[in-house]
C-alpha cells in the first residue's frame, strides 16, 4: 500500500489563502441561493492537482452545496442560483459555451450514499465510457473496466463476477464501484461528498487508502464531517461555517495552529 509522503506538502505551502501551483479549479466570489435563501456567501478558493482538498464544517454549513457548484450539479435543483466565477483550467464553467455534459466528464463525483445503478458491475463501470463514446475498438471497454476497477482497488474482489448486480455488493464495495465508475471516464477532478459517511470503519479505511493512491492523478476534493478523516487524507483543508469560507490552508496548519478563532473552536469540539 502506498505510503503517504507528507514531506512534499511542505514544499508547496507558500501562500496559505490559495493553493500553490497552477490551480485546476478556482472559485471567485461565489454566492449560491436556494430561492430567497442564501446558502453560500462570497467564497473564493483554489484547488490544484497535487493535493487532496478537504472541506470541513458543521452540518448545514454549505460545504456540500459548494462542492456541487463545481460540476454544476446544482443545475438539477430548480430553485438554485449560482453567482460568481468558477473556472476549470481558466475556463468559466458557468459560461454559456460550456457544455455541462463535457464538464461533468472532466469533473466526476462520488456521492454520500453509494448509488450504483441496478445493473451489472461491468455495466456500472462501462456506463460513462459508453455515454462519452470512449471505447472505440471491441476490447477497449473491457480494458477500461478492468483498469478502472483496478484503480479503485476493487478488481481482485469482483473480477470473477463482473456480471453480478452492482447493488449486490457490500456498502464499501459499492462505494468503490462508484469511484471506479467516476474514474472510468478519466476525469481531471473528482468531487467526493462525504463518501464514507454511510460506511463502517473498515470500508472507510479502504476508501481513505484509495484516496491516497488516486492523489496526484486527479485533483480530489472531499467533503467530510469527520475531522480525523480530513486530517488523514488531505493536504489542504477549508473550513466552512454558515455559508462562508472561514479559513483555508494546509491541513497540518489548520489542525495544529488555526488562525481563526472559529476554526479553533470547531477543531477543539466547541461546536459542530
Amino acid at each position, binding site marked *: 500500500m502506498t505510503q503517504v509522503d507528507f514531506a512534499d506538502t511542505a514544499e508547496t505551502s507558500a501562500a496559505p489563502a490559495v493553493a500553490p501551483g497552477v490551480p485546476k479549479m478556482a472559485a471567485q466570489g461565489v454566492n449560491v441561493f436556494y430561492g430567497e435563501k442564501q446558502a453560500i456567501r462570497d467564497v473564493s478558493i483554489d484547488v490544484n492537482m497535487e493535493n487532496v482538498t478537504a472541506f470541513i464544517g458543521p452540518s448545514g454549513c454549505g460545504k456540500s452545496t459548494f462542492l456541487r457548484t463545481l*460540476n454544476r*450539479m446544482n443545475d*438539477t435543483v*430548480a430553485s438554485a442560483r449560482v453567482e460568481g466565477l468558477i473556472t476549470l483550467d481558466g475556463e468559466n464553467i458557468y459560461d454559456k459555451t460550456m457544455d*455541462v*455534459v*463535457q*464538464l*461533468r*466528464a472532466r469533473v*466526476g*463525483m462520488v*456521492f454520500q*450514499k453509494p*448509488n*450504483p*445503478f*441496478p*445493473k451489472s458491475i461491468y455495466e456500472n463501470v462501462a*456506463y*460513462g465510457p459508453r*455515454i*462519452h463514446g470512449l471505447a472505440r475498438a471491441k476490447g477497449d471497454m473491457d480494458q477500461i473496466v478492468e483498469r478502472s476497477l483496478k484503480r479503485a482497488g476493487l478488481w481482485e474482489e469482483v473480477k470473477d463476477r463482473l456480471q453480478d448486480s452492482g447493488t449486490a455488493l457490500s456498502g464499501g464495495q459499492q462505494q468503490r464501484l*462508484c469511484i471506479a*465508475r*467516476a474514474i472510468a*471516464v478519466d476525469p481531471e477532478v473528482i468531487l467526493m461528498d462525504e463518501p464514507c459517511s454511510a460506511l463502517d470503519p473498515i470500508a472507510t479505511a479502504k476508501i481513505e487508502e484509495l484516496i491516497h493512491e488516486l492523489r496526484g492523478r486527479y485533483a480530489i476534493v472531499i467533503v467530510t464531517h469527520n475531522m480525523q478523516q480530513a486530517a488523514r487524507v488531505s493536504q489542504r483543508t477549508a473550513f466552512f461555517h454558515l455559508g462562508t469560507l472561514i479559513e483555508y490552508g494546509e491541513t497540518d496548519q489548520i489542525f495544529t495552529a488555526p488562525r481563526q478563532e472559529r476554526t479553533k473552536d470547531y477543531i477543539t469540539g466547541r461546536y459542530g
Partner: protein
Amino acid sequence: MNLYALLFLVTGLGVIAWLTGRARAARYGAASKHRLHSLPGQHGLYVAMWTVIPALFFVIIWSIFTPNLATEAVLRDPQAFALPAFGYEREAVLNEIRARAAGSEYGFYPAAEQLAPVYLQASRFYSWIGTGIAILLAFACGAFAYTRIRADFRARTRVERTVMLALLVASLIAILTTLGIFLSLLFESLRFFAMVPITDFLFGTTWSPQVIDPADPGATLGAVPLFWGTFFIGAVIAMLVAIPFGLMSAIYLTQYAKPVVRKWMKPMLEILAGVPTVVYGYFAALTVGPAIRDFAVSLGFTYASSESALAAGLVMGVMIIPFVSSMADDSIAAVPSAMRDGSLAMGATSSETIRKVLLPAALPGVVAGVLLAVSRAIGETMIVVMAASGAANITANPFESATTVTKQIVDLLTGEAEFDSPKTLAAFALGLTLFLITFLLNIVALRVVKKYREAYD
C-alpha cells in the same frame, strides 16, 4: 307491525338502554372508592349494543323467512289444493298472491284473488310474532348487559371489540360479493358446459349464436374469434396508443415539467380517466369510426367498415392513457434520486439518464401498470358496444371489423332471452373466462409491483 316502525322502536330502546346503562355506571362510579374502569358513556354503549344488535339481527333473519312461512300458510288453505301442482304456473300464481297482498289491484288468476287475504293475514300474524320476539330479545339482552355493569367491568374493551367486528364484516362484504359473483358465473357456466363441450367453446373458431344447430350447439359457439378480437382491440391496438403516450407523458411530468406545469397538467390528464365510457363510445362511433373508414377507403380498402377494430382500439387506448401514465409516474418517482444524480454526474444527458437508468429501474412498475391497463381494457364494454362490430372475424387488419367478448355478452343478454338455451348461457361462460383472464392479469401485476417495491427497501 310495519318493519320501519319496528326498527324505529328498537332504536328507541337502544337510546333508553344507553341512558340507563350510563346512569347506572355513573352511580357505581360515585359509590365506589375506585375509579370506573370505563367511562359511563362506554357502559351505556355496551348496554345499547346488547339491546339493539341481537334484536336487529333477529328482525333481519325473520323478515327473510316470513314470506316463506306465509306462503306455507296459504298452501295449507283448502282453496289452495286447486292450484297447479308444479312448475312455472304454480310459481306465477304464488307471485300474484304476494303482489295482491302487497296492494296490487291487477291480476290474471282468480285463485290469487281468493287467496290473497289468506296470505295477508298469515304474514300479519308472523310479523306480529316477529315483533314480539324482537322486543323481548331487546329487553332480555339489554337487561343481561345492564346487570353486568360494575365499577371494574371492562365495557371499553368490549365496545372496541364490537367496533372491530363491525369493520371486519364491512370488509368481508366486498370479498363475499366477489365470491358470490364468481360462484353464480361458475354455476351458470357449468350448465352451459353440460350442453356444449368445453373444447368446442374454447377452441372453436366459428361464432354465430344466431344460428345454433340443436344437435351440435358447439359448432357455432366457438369463442376464439371473440377472444382474438378482445386481444386485438384491447391488448394490441389500445396498448399501442396507451403505452407510448402514457409513458412519455409520465416522463415529461416527472423529469421535465416545472412544478407549476405539473400542477396543472397532471389533474388535466386524470380528467381523461373520469370521462364516462359511454362518452368515449359516442366519440368512437360518431367521429373516429367514420374518419378511419374514409381514411381506409382512401388507402384502397374498399370494404372498410366504420365499425373497425382500429376505431374502438384507438379510443380505448386514449381512455387507458391515464392508467399507464399514473402507474409509470409513481414508479419513476419511486426510483431514488441518487440514481438520477449518479447518472447526471457522469455527464449523461437527461434523456440518456431516463433511457438508461430511470426506465430500467422503473420497468417492473411500468409493466405492472400496463398489465392493469390491459385487464381494464379487455373488460371495457361501452366503447366496444357502441363502436365495434358484431361480426366475429379473426383478422389482423385493423380496418376490418372485429368484436369482443364484452360486446357479445351484451348482445346475448339483451332482448328476448331464454335462460336455458345454450345461446344465453354462453354469455356466462364468456363472462367466466374473461373474469379468469383479468383476475390472472391482476395477480401477476400485483406480484410484479410487490417485487419491485422490495428492490429499493
